[in-house]
C-alpha cells in the first residue's frame, strides 16, 4: 500500500490537508492529492491552538527520531480539539515489528479517535516510513471497513440471489450490527491476547537461543581460523615438506627413487632462498 492509495478512501468532504510534520520533512509529493484538496503546512504548536473540523485532514509523521519525527504525546492537544468526523493520517516512523503502540493508544483515546485503518506501507515508497494510520474523532463506533480489497476493485454481487438486508460494504448499519462488531472486537482481543502469551514467551526463548548460538558460532569460527592459521604455518615449514615428500615416496615406491630426491632438492632450495635477505633489504 502507498500513502497515495490510502488517502483517497478518507478524503470525502475534506477540502484541505494540514501537515504538522517537522518542517524538514517534505512528503507532499507522495500524497498525490486531488486538485480540489488543498495542502498547507502548519507548525504543531500553532495547530494545537486551533480547532479542526471534518473539512480538514491532519497529516503528521510520528516516530522516535526527534526532531524529524513528532512524538505522539505532542499530538494529544491537537486531537482533543478535533470536532466529530475529523480525520488524521499519521505516518509511522518506527518499524512495524517494533511499533510501540502503547505510545499511540493513549493519545488516540484521549482525543476520542478511532483507528479507521492501519496498514503497512510499501517500503520502496517512502524511506523510513513503515506504515500509516487513519484515525477519526468519533462519538460512537464508526463501521470497520474491509482491508483486503482495494477501494477500486469491489466484489460485485453477481447473478440472481437475495439482496443483502444488513447494510452496504462498510459493515452493518443499525445497533444490532454495531453491538455484534463491538463484541467481536472485544472477544477476539481477549482471546487473541491469551493465546499470544505463550507465543510471545516462545519467541523470547527462541530469540535468546538464536543469540547464544550465534555467540557460540562466532567463538567456533575464531577457533577454526586459529587452527587453520597454525596448520598453514606447519604446512609451509621445511620439516613438514620434507616429511611429506618422504611419506609420498614411501606410499609409491616405484616413483620414490626418482621423485624423492627431486622433492628434497626443491625443499632444500626453498629453505635457502627463504633464508636469503629479500630484495632491497640490507638486513641479513
Amino acid at each position: 500500500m502507498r500513502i497515495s492509495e490510502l488517502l483517497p478512501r478518507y478524503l470525502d468532504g475534506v477540502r484541505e490537508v494540514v501537515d504538522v510534520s517537522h518542517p524538514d520533512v517534505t512528503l507532499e509529493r507522495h500524497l498525490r492529492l486531488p486538485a480540489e484538496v488543498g495542502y498547507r503546512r502548519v507548525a504543531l504548536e500553532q495547530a494545537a491552538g486551533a480547532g479542526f473540523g471534518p473539512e480538514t485532514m491532519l497529516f503528521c509523521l510520528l516516530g522516535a527520531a526527534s526532531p524529524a519525527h513528532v512524538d505522539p504525546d505532542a499530538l494529544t492537544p491537537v486531537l482533543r480539539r478535533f470536532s466529530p468526523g475529523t480525520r488524521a493520517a499519521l505516518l509511522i516512523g518506527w518499524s512495524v515489528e517494533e511499533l510501540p503502540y502503547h505510545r499511540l493508544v493513549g493519545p488516540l483515546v484521549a482525543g476520542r479517535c478511532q483507528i479507521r485503518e492501519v496498514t503497512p506501507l510499501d517500503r520502496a515508497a517512502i524511506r523510513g516510513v513503515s506504515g500509516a494510520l487513519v484515525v477519526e474523532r468519533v462519538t460512537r463506533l464508526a463501521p470497520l471497513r474491509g482491508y483486503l480489497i482495494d477501494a477500486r476493485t469491489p466484489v460485485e454481487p453477481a447473478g440472481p440471489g437475495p439482496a443483502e438486508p444488513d447494510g452496504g460494504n462498510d459493515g452493518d448499519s443499525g445497533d444490532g450490527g454495531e453491538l455484534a462488531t463491538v463484541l467481536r472486537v472485544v472477544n477476539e482481543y481477549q482471546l487473541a491476547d491469551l493465546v499470544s502469551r505463550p507465543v510471545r514467551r516462545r519467541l523470547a526463548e527462541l530469540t535468546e537461543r538464536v543469540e547464544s548460538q550465534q555467540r557460540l558460532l562466532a567463538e567456533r569460527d575464531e577457533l577454526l581460523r586459529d587452527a587453520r592459521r597454525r596448520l598453514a604455518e606447519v604446512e609451509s615449514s621445511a620439516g613438514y615438506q620434507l616429511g611429506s615428500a618422504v611419506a609420498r615416496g614411501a606410499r609409491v615406491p616405484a616413483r620414490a627413487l626418482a621423485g624423492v630426491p627431486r622433492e628434497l632438492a626443491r625443499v632444500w632450495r626453498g629453505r635457502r632462498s627463504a633464508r636469503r635477505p629479500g630484495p632491497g633489504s640490507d638486513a641479513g
Partner: protein
Amino acid sequence: MGLLSAEENAAYWNARHQREGDLRSGGDMSFDEPTNRMFYILRLSLLLDIVGHQSDPVAPLFLLDAGCGKGWFSRELARFGHQVDGIDASESALAYCRERGGGARYFQSSLSGWRSPWLYDVVLSVDVLFHILDDDEWERSVRNLASLVRLRGRLALADWGEDGDRTYGNYQVVRGRNRYVPLARECGLRFDGWRPYAFRGNPNGFYVFTRTG
C-alpha cells in the same frame, strides 16, 4: 447411483492424487493438463481480487487453503508474499505438497476438524465443499471454516451459484445460494457476492463473505 461413503471418498481422492498429473488431479478431469492450467490461472486471478492486491513482507496476510489438494493455489498465494496454511484429508496430496515446498505449511485435516489458535485474514476453499457428500459434515465444515475468519476477514467458498442442491455422479453434491448465504450469516458473515468462474460452461464460482460480527 448411490453416493460414496466417507471412507470411499477419502480413498478416491488419495488414489486420484497419486495417479493424476499436477493439475488434473485437483482440477477438471474432462480437460487436459494445459486446459486445466488456464482454469487454475483464471481462478487464481479471482482469488487475487478476493484476497486483495496488497502484500507486505513484514506484516503478511494469513490464509487458509482448505482442501488444498496438491497445493497449486497454496504455492501461488505464498508467492504473493502471503503466509499460507494448506489442509487436506489426502495423505498422498500432502506428501506431494511437502516435496514441492514453496513456502506454505501443510497439515492433514478435514475441513470440519482443523483447529488453530490464530484466525485467518482469508479462508478459501476451492472445489472441495461439493465433494463433501454428507450434509451434516458439509454444514460442520462451513461452520468451522467461518469460525476461523477474523473480524473483517474474508471467506471464499466455491460452489454453484443457483439455489438448490444437485447431485452429479457418485461424488459431487453441489449446494446453492439458499444454503450458503443464510448459514454464513448465522456465523456473523456478510454476503458480498458470488463470483462465477466463467470458464467453459463451468457452473461454479466463489461465494464471498466478510466477517462483520
